[in-house]
């Protein structure tokens, strides 16, 4: 099955480069391009891509707002992979909060770009777990210490998790896929899937990335 991709970037040469890199693989098809976040929702509704590869800084509507629009206005939003340039930590974290499934630096090698699209399309493991942890650490650290208990993002939801679900969440944060978690914990794949969807529901998270961010922010999974 081919992965249908929509490319959103205000720079034509960036879109062209990404298109050539992705279309050189047989399992990926670029079904459309857009030059601004403003048109992402109508285009997604008509082209039905599996993955939207989205720039963050665009002239009219930025990638963070466009990601939020997709989540809010479409019943079955596609997965979103945001691509970033330099010094964009704040924006990357905001995009992940808005519902992006992963992020990719534009300076990534072609093979990494292809891998990122595949991982995000499958949605069963976390993209760049170490980088997400580092990002979360930078954003959560100033709030930990005395203020941590008063903040407690998702604290109540996190406490409602079973011991097994916490264990699985910790492994998800390390970037393990469902199959790898099943192997690690000697569980059946179906059992792991059930636990994962249950913990996503309890955390109010749509996907693994959001669940893991909540886990870091609530202190359930230690950042160090």
């Amino acid at each position, binding site marked *: 099955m081919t992965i249908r991709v929509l490319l959103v970037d205000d720079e034509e040469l*960036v879109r062209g480069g990404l298109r050539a890199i992705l279309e050189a693989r047989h399992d990926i098809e670029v079904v459309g391009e857009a030059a601004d976040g*403003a048109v992402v929702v109508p285009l997604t509704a008509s082209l039905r891509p599996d993955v939207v590869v989205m720039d963050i800084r665009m002239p009219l509507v930025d990638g963070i707002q466009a990601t939020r629009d997709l989540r809010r206005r479409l019943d079955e939003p596609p997965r979103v992979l945001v691509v970033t340039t330099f010094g964009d930590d704040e924006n990357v974290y905001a995009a992940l909060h808005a519902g992006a499934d992963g992020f990719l630096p*534009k*300076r990534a090698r072609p093979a990494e770009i292809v891998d990122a699209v595949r991982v995000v399309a499958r949605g069963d493991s976390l993209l760049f777990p170490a980088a997400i942890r580092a990002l979360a650490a930078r954003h959560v650290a100033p709030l930990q210490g005395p203020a941590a208990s008063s903040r407690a993002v998702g604290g109540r939801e996190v406490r409602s998790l079973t011991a097994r679900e916490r264990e699985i969440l910790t492994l998800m944060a390390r970037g393990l896929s469902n199959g790898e978690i099943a192997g690690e914990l000697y569980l059946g794949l179906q059992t792991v899937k059930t636990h994962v969807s249950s913990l996503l529901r309890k955390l109010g998270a749509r996907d693994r990335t959001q669940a893991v961010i909540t886990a870091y922010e609530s202190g359930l999974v230690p950042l160090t």
Partner: protein
Amino acid sequence: MRSVLRRGTGRTIWARVLHLALGAWFAVACAMVWPGLPDASPRTLAGLFLAPLPALAVLACVPVVRRSEGVQARALLLPGDDEVTVEPSRTWSDRGRLLLWLCVRVELGVLAALAVAGAVSLLAGPLPSWVWVPVAAAVVPCLVLVLAGLGALAAAAARRLLHPSLAERLRAQQVRTERLLERTRLAAELHDSIGHALTVTLLQAGAAREVAGRDPAFVDAALAAVEDSARQAAADLDRVLALLRDGAPLADAPTLADVGRLARAARAAGADVDLRVEGPVAGLPPLVSREAYRIAQEALTNALRHAGPVPVALRVDVHADALELDVRNPVPVPAPASVGSGSGLAGLRERAAVLGGTASAGPVDGDWRVAVRLPLAGPA
């Protein structure tokens, strides 16, 4: 008293006593002049101590004296404290407070001199030798305490009388904000120019390697793009370095004169923008022009977000008394359910209202129309 000692370490105390020495010299001068006066009564002594007032008043009127006093107070009274100004006087209120401070400084110095003189005369006086040691043991610490107290008083007075005025604090805040904004703009400039060019270079080179041997035409085009981007980046680097060297201000927020750029961005996003501008856009008041640019940007953005890539007509009319913006686009069929989310329109109305203008949006003849009118004479 102990808190005074604890707050001022030994070094601070002696620095403060040094500061008091100016007034003390004046007291010494008085003490030398007074016995020679024809009428050497306590009244003339008191008059002598008031004698420097006119001189101090003249001194207080010289703007730079405030800076000099500030520098001395910072160095000797309140080391490491930037609550004391080092700016010259600008207003009469600055000068008034400075005069008060100069008087306080001289008179505290006189008191310090009296304390020292008193202690010395007591110890040098005709005391039986068996009392001298205990008296000295009591008097010397007392003298240190008194001097420390006077120093603390001088410091407190400096903090009250030499603090920056409200205007000075505002100005300092403004300078800090401008510097911060400048750095943010410079970072954005670097990101948009050189960062952008590097990104294109990387992606095109990577793509060329991917398709090498299979698509020579793409490889050719990619190499040309890499070369162009690198050349552009070199030019941008020159420009940013020049900005850093000269400290020239970077471009401000876009105004309505840049509406063409806005139309280009919307066209690149797929909208078929028909832009018409009537009247002297360049002569608009900057505030109105900047806000109008943002309003036009918001209207175009909303058209794209709700209707997708459709034809959009953007009209800008500059009249003598008002600026009119009119944005029209066909409503998609079926109309999207979320058109009435309203937050975009509320934002438009708010922006217009701040400038005393009006904004409306709604369906007209099968089109969605946003109309904004901003008065040019300022809010009524």
